[in-house]
């Protein structure tokens, strides 16, 4: 019995230690709570996944701007799971945040959460991915269709105006995959002489990019260029082509300009990557929310510029 009790007590101590340590690190719970009731603003940020450098950079950009503006930022991680996202947003509403920045896991699945925030009178801003319903004050995102077009134009130039290209697609159904694919296909379909010999999904994932492209290399003796909907997949494809000794004959274009990809561009292994500016997206998200909370009007769509990173 005594042993049981001591275990229970030590368990409690461990948990409380963790909770307090974590609290002071990330959000400062008591501070967040006081702030919700008076004083500085508290903004809740729901991120689709913090298991991807892009969204970590987005979070960092948001955090930096929040710190600069003296705003408390409470971050939750959906781990790419819409059900967890719904719960997390419920928790942020319960915490009484002044505004919600949502980076949805899925544009449909987030709608009930947006409506819950609407009912609670909390203004909602979407970042990177939009919501297909509910009242959203502003959407802050890159123009992914334009980015896909940008990538296609570059790729077509780089392969000399004609040839065989491969498209590695993102998670089917996500708006990023749809929009980037749409932009890419718009340009390629309008260009005679360029043929898409394979278009397969690798779910935005490096390992899958490697495996899928390995199979495509096996199936297609002639490939001039590859466009992937994100850098993780193009880096996987690059690895596969290097292992097969065919990397020299293929032009690789990625999307997102994550650190690894930018380094690969500098090394000349990757031809180009379309740079979204995740840090800027996060930062503009926070500053837009603050502007709105201070009573000023904001635009309903705030495009964040894209650029092409080449050597």
């Amino acid at each position, binding site marked *: 019995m005594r042993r049981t009790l001591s275990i229970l007590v030590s368990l409690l101590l461990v948990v409380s230690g963790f909770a307090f340590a974590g609290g002071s690190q990330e959000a400062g*719970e008591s501070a967040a709570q006081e702030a919700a009731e008076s004083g500085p603003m508290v903004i809740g940020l729901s991120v689709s996944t913090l298991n991807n450098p892009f969204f970590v950079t987005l979070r960092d950009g948001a955090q930096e701007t929040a710190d600069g503006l003296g705003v408390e930022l409470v971050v939750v991680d959906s781990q790419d799971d819409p059900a967890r996202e719904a719960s997390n947003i419920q*928790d942020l509403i319960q915490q009484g945040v002044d505004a919600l920045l949502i980076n949805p896991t899925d544009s449909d699945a987030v709608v009930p959460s947006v409506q819950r925030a609407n009912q609670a009178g909390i203004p909602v801003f979407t970042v990177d991915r939009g919501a297909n319903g509910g009242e959203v004050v502003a959407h802050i995102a890159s123009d992914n269709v334009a980015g896909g077009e940008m990538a296609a134009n570059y790729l077509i130039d780089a392969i000399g105006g004609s040839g065989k290209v491969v498209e590695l697609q993102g998670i089917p159904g996500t708006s990023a995959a749809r929009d980037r694919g749409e932009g890419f296909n718009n340009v390629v379909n309008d260009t005679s002489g360029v043929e898409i010999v394979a278009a397969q999904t690798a779910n935005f994932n490096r390992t899958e990019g490697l495996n899928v492209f390995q199979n495509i290399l096996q199936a297609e003796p002639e490939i001039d260029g590859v466009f992937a909907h994100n850098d993780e997949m193009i880096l996987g494809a690059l690895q596969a082509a290097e292992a097969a000794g065919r990397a020299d004959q293929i032009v690789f274009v990625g999307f997102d300009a994550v650190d690894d990809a930018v380094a690969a561009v500098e090394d000349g292994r990757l031809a180009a990557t379309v740079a979204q500016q995740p840090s800027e997206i996060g930062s503009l998200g926070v500053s837009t929310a603050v502007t709105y909370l201070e009573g000023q009007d904001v635009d309903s769509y705030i495009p964040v510029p894209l650029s092409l990173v080449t050597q």
Partner: protein
Amino acid sequence: MIPTVRRIVVRYSTFLILAALMLLFSLVSSRFLQVNNLLNIVDQSALLAIVAIGVTYTIISGGIDLSVGSVVALVGAVSAGLIVRAGLPVPVGILLGLVFGALLGLVNGLFVVYGRLQPFVATLAMMAIARGLTLLYTQGRPISGMGEAYTFFGSRLGPIPVSILVLLVVVLVSGTVLRRTPFGAYVYAVGGNEETTRLAGVAVSRVKLGAYAFSGLMAAVGGIILTARLWSAQPQAATGLELQAIAATVLGGASLMGGAGTILGTVAGALIMGVLANGLNLAGVSSYLQQVITGGIFILAVLLDMWTKRQKV
């Protein structure tokens, strides 16, 4: 006096851990113990609890069901698709979804019983098949627009989330079946000692088929609840839910060797996971650290359960 206390600790260690966590979080955040937040927690845990109850049946019977996450997604997609694409009335779409889920579970059972596959293997295969079918059926895109009669199951009646009411019904039915019917007794018996049970004249095959079909049915109920909560059927919904369901079942005192486990224990296990996620969020703990803590609590809780049970009562 002391033996009584000890017996309570042994019998209800899961509930004590739940209470301890709640006490702790109420100290960390003043918003934790608010009624609305407690309702939020049960609402957030209902899906896991319902699915874990099904898994509990298979685990008590000495098996396991790894396919539940995929079945949740597939049933959600099919029921939504029947309503949105095929234009069936909402109750029919939901009912067919439930039947479909039970059938998928039954197929698991058939492979286990007549194919003599290990439950782990059979349901692992179903996990892949059902996820693939979900992607094929949805073409990787969410299905939405089922209407309010469907999303009712993800809404609230006054302050009470409908998911909680569904959970209550599920707990009553599954608990009664397990505790008060011969079938329930056979589920324990099969998990405790299959050979003896067979020799005692019990139709072991039928008991196992029943357990897997029930697990499929519970996953189907979960699929409807989740789809209603998100107003859309997601092709990647409930990925990894099977492991959480097994965790909740084990937290609830079930043995992966079979023969032991209770419905209320499993519900408490699911609530522990819900309280952890909610409480750590309210406490503003970094999401990376949250996963470490959740894993740590899981180990501690199971160790505690084993230690208390080892003490002679």
